[in-house]
């Protein structure tokens, strides 16, 4: 069950609009390594996880990604608020504006709409955890790339927070991979799918 808290995970208060920057940052809303994909990936993968630590981590990180989705939506919203038609045209925001006005729509920086093809739920925890660790690093690189185009502290500050969270999540997923393999036969971790072939767990389970 989910309960909404009427508060941003990290405060965002942008004083200067910048539709050019919004066009780039929206990629972390609905792009290939964005927060929408992240939350759906973890919240979908968790059902078949065979170990309690993994279920907890995927649930908690999946929920945190929804906070981050809200943060990115807020940054895009505040960067495109109260724009004049001239500003929209000058910033090259007109193509987005034609389809969405200033509504926040999940798409990549190149305008590709969000697709579930960005994520995988493979039903094998070793495979899924590797995908999750890669996903955190891909998101971290995307934030690094976004930071190259940020010259406004009001935007940089929350983006840096989000970048740091990718690294923490990567660390937690790495620990989960170790917790899982510790319970398996070290002679060949990949002989079985730990979600499907239950017999692969050592007797100490």
């Amino acid at each position, binding site marked *: 069950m989910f*309960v*909404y*808290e*009427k*508060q*941003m*995970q*990290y*405060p*965002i*208060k942008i004083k200067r609009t910048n539709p050019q920057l919004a066009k780039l940052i929206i990629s972390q809303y609905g792009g290939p390594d964005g927060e929408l994909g992240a939350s759906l990936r973890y919240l979908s993968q968790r059902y078949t996880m065979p170990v309690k*630590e993994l279920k*907890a*981590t995927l649930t*908690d*990180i999946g929920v*945190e990604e929804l906070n981050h989705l*809200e943060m990115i*939506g*807020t940054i895009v*919203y*505040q960067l495109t*608020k109260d724009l004049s038609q001239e500003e929209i045209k000058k910033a090259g925001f007109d193509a987005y504006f034609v389809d969405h006005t200033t509504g926040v729509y999940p798409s990549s920086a190149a305008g590709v709409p969000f697709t579930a093809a960005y994520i995988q739920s493979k039903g094998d925890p070793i495979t899924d955890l590797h995908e999750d660790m890669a996903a955190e690093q891909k998101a971290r690189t995307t934030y690094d790339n976004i930071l190259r185009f940020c010259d406004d502290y009001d935007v940089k500050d929350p983006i840096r927070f989000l970048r740091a969270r990718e690294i*923490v999540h990567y660390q*937690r997923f790495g*620990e*989960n991979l170790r*917790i899982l393999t510790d319970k398996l036969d070290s002679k060949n971790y990949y002989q079985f799918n730990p979600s499907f072939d239950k017999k692969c767990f050592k007797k100490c389970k």
Partner: protein
Amino acid sequence: MTQREIMLKKIGMYKFALKDIALYLDTHPHDEMMLRKYDEYESILKPLVEDFEEKYGPLTVSVRNKNRFLWINNPWPWENEEDA
């Protein structure tokens, strides 16, 4: 920053610390020091939230004022206080 924003930032700080500790505890469920830290921060957070909600309205859906549903009031988290 307005008084409301200052209070909200402090609440957010403790909520975040709790979130991050919980994530750590997911993979270190026997770490007694962190379990104590979680408890400590939670007890600091509780009166801060009560104080805030008393002054500015609910952070999670609830009805304290019996005349009006204050939950719908601006600002929402994506809005600046001045615009709302």
